[in-house]
């Protein structure tokens, strides 16, 4: 466990069947880092995320997670690796036939030898962490979109993963809930030392929590900038990057003059 990187992507080419979505991606995420994946809508952020977590195989290139090469042909090794990794989805992806508490308990039941009492205790801890303590017995269909996302997060952290992936966690949350989520991510890093890879559009979030980001340009189909967003914002030579990171400022000026 000496390696420095939680995630390494080398020479990745990604796409679906007859179309390349992203090409020549090289980047790595250090342990304990909060790493942002940014880019305009439809540029392939979710696509990148789905390949990083092994849902789709890359057309070309290598991915390693927590020091292990991602090998989709060895299913039991993949399943073991994924117990150390948490993923939250844009829509929560809760299992509709189980209550919220059962959703959170599932990975604990399947991957640990803990007793039902211990599991129940962990479940209520995790639900309290995402502010859903009173909703354990609700079905996912009875929750709002934002609540579903938070329940998905509780499930993703049930096994105390070392690496967490988020796809637009704050989309659809009110500003206060989004800020609470940001501080939850920061405190998880502080307390558990997790590494976080996050796809987001929220500039506030980006500046509040990410250490480093990559920015993908849809036109180029690849990474056009990498680094500290606060620096890139003013120092990048790429106009797209500067515009992207100053979007809020632009919007405000449009309102002002428009």
């Amino acid at each position, binding site marked *: 466990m000496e390696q420095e990187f939680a995630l390494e992507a080398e020479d990745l080419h990604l796409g679906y*069947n*007859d179309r390349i979505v992203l090409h020549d991606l090289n980047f790595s995420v250090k342990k304990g880092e909060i790493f942002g994946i940014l880019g305009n809508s439809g540029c392939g952020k979710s696509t990148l995320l789905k390949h990083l977590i092994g849902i789709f195989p890359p057309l070309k290139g290598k991915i390693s997670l927590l020091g292990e090469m991602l090998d989709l042909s060895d*299913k039991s090794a993949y399943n073991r690796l994924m117990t150390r990794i948490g993923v939250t989805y844009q829509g929560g992806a809760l*299992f509709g036939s189980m209550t919220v508490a059962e959703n959170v308990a599932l990975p604990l039941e399947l991957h640990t030898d803990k007793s039902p009492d211990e599991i129940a205790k962990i479940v209520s801890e995790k639900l309290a962490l995402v502010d859903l303590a009173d909703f354990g017995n609700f079905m996912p269909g009875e929750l709002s979109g934002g609540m579903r996302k938070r329940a998905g997060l509780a499930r993703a952290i049930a096994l105390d993963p070392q690496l967490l992936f988020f796809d637009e966690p704050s989309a659809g949350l009110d500003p206060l809930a989004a800020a609470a989520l940001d501080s939850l991510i920061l405190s998880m890093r502080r307390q558990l030392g997790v590494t976080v890879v996050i796809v987001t559009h929220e500039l506030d979030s980006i500046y509040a929590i990410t250490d480093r980001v990559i920015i993908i340009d849809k036109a180029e189909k690849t990474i056009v900038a990498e680094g500290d967003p606060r620096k890139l914002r003013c120092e990048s030579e790429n106009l797209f990057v500067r515009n992207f990171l100053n979007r809020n400022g632009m919007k405000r000026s449009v309102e002002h003059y428009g």
Partner: protein
Amino acid sequence: MDEILPSSNWIGRIKKTAASATAPVIFIGAVAVALPQIIKKRTLRLKDLVYYLDLCGTKSLGVVLLISALMGMVLAIQGALQLKKVGTDIFIVDLVGFAVLKEFGPLMVAIIATGRAGSAFAAEIGTMKVNEEIFALKTLGISPESFLVVPKLISMLIAMPLLTVFADAAGILGGAAVGITYMDIPPGAYMERTFDVLDEMTFVLGVLKSSVFSILITLAGCYCGFKAAGDAQGVGRGATQAVVVSIFLVIVADAILTLLYSFAGY
């Protein structure tokens, strides 16, 4: 750069075609691997098992009894019309008994199971795909095959043979009702002949047929769910396809088994 796309050259295209042709085989392999694993690791959730046993078993019992009894009656009436010509009414017992045990019991159960369970399996898994629940399972380190298919398979393997026993009884009683009322065969004589001519092996082989059907219906339903396109229409098409594929497979398997049984003298 385009040369890395699987569809860009003929080798890639052949690979793709081969991959789609072998997909069902790989799926069945994954389920076969998952079956012993899930039992060993005790990951089978009792709750799932109870739910599917209820769906495939208890909830289907009424309609299975009804259509099997009706089928027994129809068989008896059709048989009676022919047997009356030669004046050998009592053979109606043999005709109904063998036809129900060998064919109609297992088939009636298969039809109901396809409509009720097979299509439900496809719709359930297809919907889970739309909601990214299948992805979520994978990234929780849970194999979708073992978690979603195995409980259904076990429930169907229990429920369908049991239902077939009920269907057999209902079919024979339906036939008897016609034989006794319409053909004036004394009830005692009808039942006596039933137990005389029908042997255990015929009954067991029929029930065995329905176990084979249960595997086919479950695998076809789940496979169509996993293959369904990730939208609402895709789920609908997946469910319909599950029914068509299941019925096709059941009839083909029935033909093969009937042939095999006939070599063994049954």
